[in-house]
């Protein structure tokens, strides 16, 4: 990257490029093909739902866009190479609950603070502006009372909110969320949905990986429907989610598992669902 391009930094005009542009994107693990020839332009300033059954290639596509797995084809993020976009702090990722070690000795505030690491020096010592951004993000997601708690002491929904707060503190242009509503109570789901909408309204781009259709149509501007590693359709929910395509993508399964906006039963982290604000009963330390 040239010095001039670096100076331009985050202020560059991203509208022309779209948030994510893939061409012939493919991923395979040994003999197994996970994603085949996906060419798509995900618009900026939109909420896009990446939808499909397990094994349809959603996670592989997310990993390829983030540059986490070797892939064929090309990816541009906000008009830049993925590496440039990551270095510039343009991309925030919210992991699946299953990918996190909840026993890890970090507090909610520690987790959110890592969103600012890209802006700190080598020692990652937060300056006043970083602390303010962290406090605001924590407040925005309603976690102020829980900021001093070890992350695993929170309910499933509160944990997810902490990771969304991290993305907010990072102030990224593009947010990639892997199953943000799995195992999440209603309060947390509403809090996360509100935040994502307001980000979209401020011109940020959001991509949500979602394994069924519950709640998708109301939240997203566009749906990217994947089936067996191929792009089935990309468009507004009303256009993409026809009965025919739903049947094709989800087979005889139940795309609307559970009630709308709810995770299906048996999802990890369900035990606290419906009890907003409740934390682990055994824990009494921390700042509450």
């Amino acid at each position, binding site marked *: 990257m040239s010095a001039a391009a670096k100076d331009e930094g985050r202020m560059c005009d991203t509208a022309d490029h779209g948030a994510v542009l893939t061409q012939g994107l493919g991923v395979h693990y040994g003999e197994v093909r996970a994603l085949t020839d996906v060419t798509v332009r995900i618009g900026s300033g939109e909420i896009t739902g990446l939808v499909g059954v397990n094994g349809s290639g959603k996670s592989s596509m997310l990993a390829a866009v983030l540059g986490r797995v070797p892939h064929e084809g090309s990816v541009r993020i906000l008009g830049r190479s993925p590496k440039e976009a990551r270095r510039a702090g343009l991309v925030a990722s919210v992991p699946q609950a299953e990918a996190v*070690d909840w026993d890890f000795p970090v507090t909610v505030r520690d987790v959110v603070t890592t969103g600012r*690491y890209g802006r700190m020096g080598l020692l*990652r010592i937060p300056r006043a502006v970083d602390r303010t951004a962290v406090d605001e993000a924590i407040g925005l997601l309603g976690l102020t009372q829980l900021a001093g708690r070890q992350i695993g002491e929170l309910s499933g929904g509160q944990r997810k909110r902490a990771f969304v707060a*991290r993305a907010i503190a990072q102030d990224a242009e593009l947010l*990639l969320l892997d199953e943000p509503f799995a195992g999440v109570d209603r309060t947390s789901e509403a809090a996360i949905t509100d935040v994502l909408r307001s980000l979209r309204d401020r011109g940020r781009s959001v991509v949500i990986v979602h394994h069924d259709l519950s709640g998708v149509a109301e939240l997203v501007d566009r749906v990217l429907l994947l089936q067996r590693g191929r792009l089935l359709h990309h468009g507004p929910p009303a256009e993409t989610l026809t009965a025919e395509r739903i049947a094709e993508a989800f087979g005889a399964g139940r795309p609307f598992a559970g009630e709308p906006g709810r995770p299906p039963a048996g999802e990890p982290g369900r035990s606290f669902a419906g009890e907003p604000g409740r934390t682990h009963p055994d824990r009494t330390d*921390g700042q509450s």
Partner: protein
Amino acid sequence: MDASVLDAILAPFSYGFMQRALIVTLMAAIACALLSTWLVQMGWSLMGDAVSHAVLPGVALAYILGLPFAIGAAVFGIGAVALIGGVRAATRIKADAAIGVVFTTLFALGLVIVSVTPSDTDLQHILFGNVLGVSDADIAQVLIVGGVVCASLLVLRRDLTLVAFDAGHAHAIGLRPRILHAVLLGALALTVVTALQAVGIILVVAMLIIPGATASLIAVRWDALLAWSVGITVVASLVGLMGAFWLDISPGGAVVLTQGLAFGLALLFGPRRGLVVRWARARRHAVHRG
């Protein structure tokens, strides 16, 4: 504190050889304790086991060639890590088996090399440490290597912790998890060298695992975890060396045994999930219900 008790505690360290032993043991133990926090949280304890054994041929060859132990150990430590990765990539063997095959084979190679070298008293020293007979050169090496390792880990501690907690986020914000993993493994190889003098190859593993594991039963924040890990290991080193002096037992053995006792105490009384705390909670719940 009663003056006579203090005298009794400090008496062993009025001897020159005990002072040297203390310096070497503390430096090695602190480097190990810092490293152990990441190894334990990342599930890399077995890697500590592997690298500590795999350096034996490197140390033996360095001895034969008259090079510093650190160079031979670093080459074989990092080589072992690369070989483990290679075996996993080339076969379908699972991680623990790949680690087991590589480090035991290298350890055996080390034993063979040592067996054909003239003096075999040094093998005892490599295997079990020789902390009461360290030379000035040994002390200088341990202080330099240990100091570099500790400084690097402390400078990079927030990045290392982030990679251990959420490598995906670290990658997404432009950090390079692979390089940070390599830093950890490089630090591991070098730390093993410093600890060879203090406790020997076999007990290095303990010093690389027990402090971090013990601290994880106590601390809920990373900086506290580091502080507990180092604190526990410093106390264990002092207690162990004094025990060795007064009871005339193996210093390396005494230090590690003390660390093991500290783990036992944390297991019983630790605030996070100590058995006593859990028992008290269960009792409280029972009272509330009943």
